[in-house]
């Protein structure tokens, strides 16, 4: 069988940028709070719906829907933190409790979306974005695929800059390292948590809108398949490593595309999840991470 190598590389990059975009917020929460927020995929799904109704019900242009969705899902993030995480943290409950609580939040948000929006797939109006491939290239790539890649890279860079180079980021890292010390240093820990969740929610919302545009079928269940894949992505990247999330996204996508291109589409997911399993056993700090004593 002929393998169309350039096209498959493009496919891998396209898929990888979706995974990376999704995983950024996931990784951010883990890096600051050490918490696995399994409700991230539900917030992502709400982002897609909010972007959609901004366009279809409120008749706003597309470029408005992205910030609107980001702000709303950012608020979702804050509410999540207040209801599902903060009480547990204050009580000093085990981190596993936060994982369970986030599963509950996820079920709640998905069911609520089903009540509000129904189960029928909905889409952005046809013709809202150009869907024809960009002409003049030796492979086929659609404008939205390029947009997702660029946005994923931009957001990653922005996040990296924010966390590593700003005062705010310094405070976030201080809280991540040791909450009590941070608060002794005069850092308002609680507001750092809120801000982190706001940012993670907004990232999920942005990912949701772009995903909804690219794959034009939005249902309450779109978060579920990507939630477990996203887990693999951030584990590969080293839990809580923002650059790692980006790289992990491309690695998982590359692996999937490679396994299908090599004729093994039946085993694609088995390969991905076996990798998840193996990475945890062999290199729990992720592919590129260094062993972080405070986390592993």
């Amino acid at each position, binding site marked *: 069988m*002929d393998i169309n190598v350039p*096209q498959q590389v493009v496919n891998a990059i*396209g898929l990888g940028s979706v995974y990376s975009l999704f995983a950024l917020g996931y990784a951010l929460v883990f890096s600051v709070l050490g918490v696995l927020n399994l409700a991230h995929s539900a917030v992502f799904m709400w982002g897609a719906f909010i972007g959609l109704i901004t366009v279809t019900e409120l008749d706003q242009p597309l470029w408005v829907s992205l910030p609107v969705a980001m702000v709303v899902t950012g608020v979702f993030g804050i509410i999540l933190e207040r209801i599902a995480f903060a009480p547990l943290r204050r009580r000093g409950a085990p981190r596993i409790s936060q994982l369970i609580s986030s599963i509950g939040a996820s079920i709640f948000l998905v069911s609520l979306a089903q009540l509000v929006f*129904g189960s*029928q797939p909905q889409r952005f109006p046809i013709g809202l974005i150009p869907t024809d491939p960009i002409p003049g290239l030796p492979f*086929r790539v*659609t404008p939205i695929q390029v947009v997702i890649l660029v946005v994923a890279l931009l957001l990653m860079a922005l996040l990296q800059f924010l966390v590593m180079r700003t005062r705010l980021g310094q405070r976030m890292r201080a809280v991540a390292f040791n909450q009590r010390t941070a608060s002794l240093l005069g850092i308002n820990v609680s507001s750092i948590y809120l801000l982190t969740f706001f940012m993670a929610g907004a990232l999920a919302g942005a990912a949701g809108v772009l995903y909804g545009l690219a*794959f034009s079928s939005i249902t309450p269940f779109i978060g579920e398949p990507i939630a477990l894949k996203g887990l693999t992505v951030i584990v590969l990247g080293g839990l809580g490593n923002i650059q790692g999330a980006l790289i992990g996204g491309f690695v998982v996508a590359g692996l999937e595309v490679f396994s299908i291109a090599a004729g093994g589409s039946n085993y694609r997911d088995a390969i991905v999840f076996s990798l998840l399993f193996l990475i945890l056993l062999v290199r729990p700090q992720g592919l590129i991470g260094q062993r972080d004593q405070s986390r592993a």
Partner: protein
Amino acid sequence: MNKLFLRVLSAMLVLVLVVPGSLLAQDEMAQMGDDIVEACPAPQNLPDTVTIGALFTLSGGASVFGQVQQLGVELAVEEINAAEYLGQGRVLEVIFEDSASDNTQAINAMVKLVEEDRVTAVLGPTLSREAFSADPVAQDAGTPVMGVSNTATGITDMGEFVFRNSLPESAVIPGTVAQAAEILGINSAAIIYANDDDFTVSGFDVFEQTFADLGIEVVGVETYATGDVDFNTQLTNIISANPDLIAISALAVEAVQIILQAQSLGYEGALMGGNGLNSPAVLEQTGDASEGLIVGAAWNVAADNPLSVAFIDAYEAANDLLPDQFAAQAYTGAWLMATAIRCADSVDGAAVRDALAGITDFDTPLGLFSFDEDRNPVHDPVAQVNRGGAFAVLTAEMMDDEG
């Protein structure tokens, strides 16, 4: 005196003008059950309220099917009661239960319907695997149960009280492939399907067998997982093999993505699907990417069948949504069950079962409908093609126009 005269005159005028008008209007409007009125006169012995159950997956991932099934049944029941189909003043009532896409909840709900609510008959469950779990409960209790979307083999083998009105892929795909191959001259094909879903896997088996029977070379087979949205990799593989036809064994949500992505990857050959793609929403959501898409299915969206047209209009008016095949089959299922109850003139399970099994050449949106001796549906499947955003019946002339 004059006043009385005027009144009589006006009353006569009303009679002359309005009554025939309304009779005429009824003649024009297609009405389900008209062809059975003579064979089965209005029932006399039914209770005031006849209760049936409807067991659909109304929540969870598969609720996308169950919810439209509920809408289809609700529309049918409204019409049945408006027409006093079960006799004057008697109403058909439906208890909807949710199986939540879960076999154990399907069993629990079936037990509740059959043993607690003591319904006359049950429509559903939505998924074949739920039917394999729950239908034995109805069979053991002697309550007729009719699947309106079960397509797996062996459903009705569970017992003589188990019916279905949904034509499986094996009844619709071979004819469609043969017809398309003859018209379009297809020599090679590729298949893409979800390998974790019983419906799509059955569809794949039928496509593969049919291609082998017709001597069409299969140049590529690709799988995906339910819920996937990115099919670029699989399609790139398939397109590299340069098939004349891509057969899509998928449900509507995934089919939409496959069609759109095949177009954006530059595929220009033919696309074909089965029952899962038989939804106006698929055409609506894919735009010009699905122009020329061939769909073999149990329900002819394109038909000039007046019952089908009336159903589509009424459904869209009621729900602001175009019906798909799931809705059409659920609607038909409710009418079939009501007809069996009317003809049996009884709410006894065995009597309704016998009446149901005896239904032959009943006019429905699916066409002239009968059950065979194994309680499987018999009606003509259809091969349709998307021309300009709407399904039309596939004919040689039609494709010639295109060339």
